[in-house]
């Protein structure tokens, strides 16, 4: 279960050590407030939003660390995804919860692989995805991925044709239970195998995927121009 590592990146020993120090009464009140806010929020909650609601001078970082530790062994865990916090059920309890939930829509193999390439190689262009898979990407595949909200248009590569670059979203992290993009399973092995350089354009040799909203050096903003990527041009005009 190497994939689940990030869910348990708190070690039981760390938790014990942290809780042994024990939060003081003021700290405990901040914890209660954070707990209530994150619980009540329909979406993962950013620290900025919490700070806006907390009394001034509240030590948010420490409160969240304590809270996370306290929920470590419970049926519900406090996790940070991207830069936002949420409560969710513990991964090992899926069996009791799955029964009435329906399976999320299954992705086609093409979509799954494309998603993986976007995740591991981001920022990545359509041509680069096609190079890895050895086939053209259908418009439908990219549409499905964009529709899931897991993939987004990042910008354009500063290269001939200024192709659009793709990357993943916070919703992607949230859905796959990742705190950050570097928690992708097997990322180190893939990097170590050196499989990501090869025929990729210059400047793309850095295999560390990045989903930073900040554009990379060889990226530029999307701009107002139409997305004349081949699958965008097929759209019916109204």
């Amino acid at each position, binding site marked *: 279960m190497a994939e689940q590592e990030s869910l348990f990146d708190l070690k039981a020993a760390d938790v014990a050590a942290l809780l042994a120090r024990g939060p003081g009464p003021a700290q405990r009140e901040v914890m209660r407030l954070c707990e209530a806010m994150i619980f009540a929020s329909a979406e993962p909650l950013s620290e900025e939003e919490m700070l806006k609601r907390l009394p001034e001078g509240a030590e948010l970082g420490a409160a969240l660390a304590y809270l996370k530790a306290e929920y470590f062994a419970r049926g519900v865990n406090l996790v940070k995804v991207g830069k936002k916090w949420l409560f*969710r059920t513990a991964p090992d309890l899926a069996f009791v919860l799955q029964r009435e939930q329906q399976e*999320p829509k299954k992705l086609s193999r093409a979509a*799954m692989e494309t*998603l993986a390439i976007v995740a591991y190689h981001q920022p990545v262009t359509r041509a680069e995805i096609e190079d890895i898979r050895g086939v053209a*990407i259908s418009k439908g595949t990219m549409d499905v991925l964009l529709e899931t909200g897991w993939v987004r248009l990042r910008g354009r590569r500063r290269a001939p044709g200024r192709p659009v670059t793709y990357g993943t979203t916070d919703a992607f992290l949230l859905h796959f239970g990742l705190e950050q993009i570097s928690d992708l399973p097997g990322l180190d092995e893939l990097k170590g195998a050196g499989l990501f350089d090869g025929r990729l354009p210059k400047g793309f040799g850095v295999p560390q995927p990045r989903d930073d909203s900040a554009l990379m050096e060889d990226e530029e903003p999307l701009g107002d121009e139409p997305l004349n990527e081949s699958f965008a041009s097929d759209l019916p005009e109204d």
Partner: protein
Amino acid sequence: MERDHDAPPEEATPVLEPADAAFEAEGGKRDDEADFRVDVDGYEGPLDLLLELARRQKVDLSRISVLALAEQYLEFIEAARRVRLELAADYLVMAAWLAYLKSRLLLPAPPKAQEPDPKDLAANLARRLRRLQAIRVAAERLMNRPRLGRDLFARGAPEGLDIVSAPIFRASLFDLLSAYARQRQKQALSHVSLKHRQVWSLAEAREALERILGMAVEWTALDDYLIDWAVTPAQARTARASTFSASLEMVKEGLIDLRQDRAFAPLMLRRRRALAAE
């Protein structure tokens, strides 16, 4: 390039003849794997097909025999053609390239300066296969992670966090003063220009006359009535004029008598006797 199969499986793909998509290929007989089948539908392009063929070598992908792989691929394509399976151009391009590679690998030609080393080409192909394989594994691991909404669940009934907007008003003293001056000035000027004459209309005058007729049995000065009805001097003029006109009208209708003893003497007014008798 061939489009991949993202559409639902039932959708026909251009790659294969419909009915006999899967069958035992004659060419496969020579292969170690006797159940080698020609089914292009299952593959997502030539690279995928190559990867599958490579897997049959049952060796580590890094120690794959590219030569053997090229031969298997060409056999597969040959078998597919024999059953008139329509192959997408990608597959044929790859076949041509592999045929070239095979010949280069088998017959080391005197090296020409421009042509790449066949070993590099082979290594490059092997690496592309490894990369595709790696991303397949990664996709698999990604999909097998505990997923929100399938294995992990967020709170079922969040109360929600609200943001209530509280207006904060801004205005400067200058805004206040100029607003004051603006409207006072406007009103001050408009009062002057709008001071129109007040007019006692004919209808009003007649109505007033009719209401007081009952009292005017004897001769009465018209001015006396007016004093009761028009208080301000400004109104007196318009009231006198209108009432005079109204009274003339009523004389004409035979309702009242009107007389004036001499020029500029008060106008005297009285109800007609006939009416008074009734």
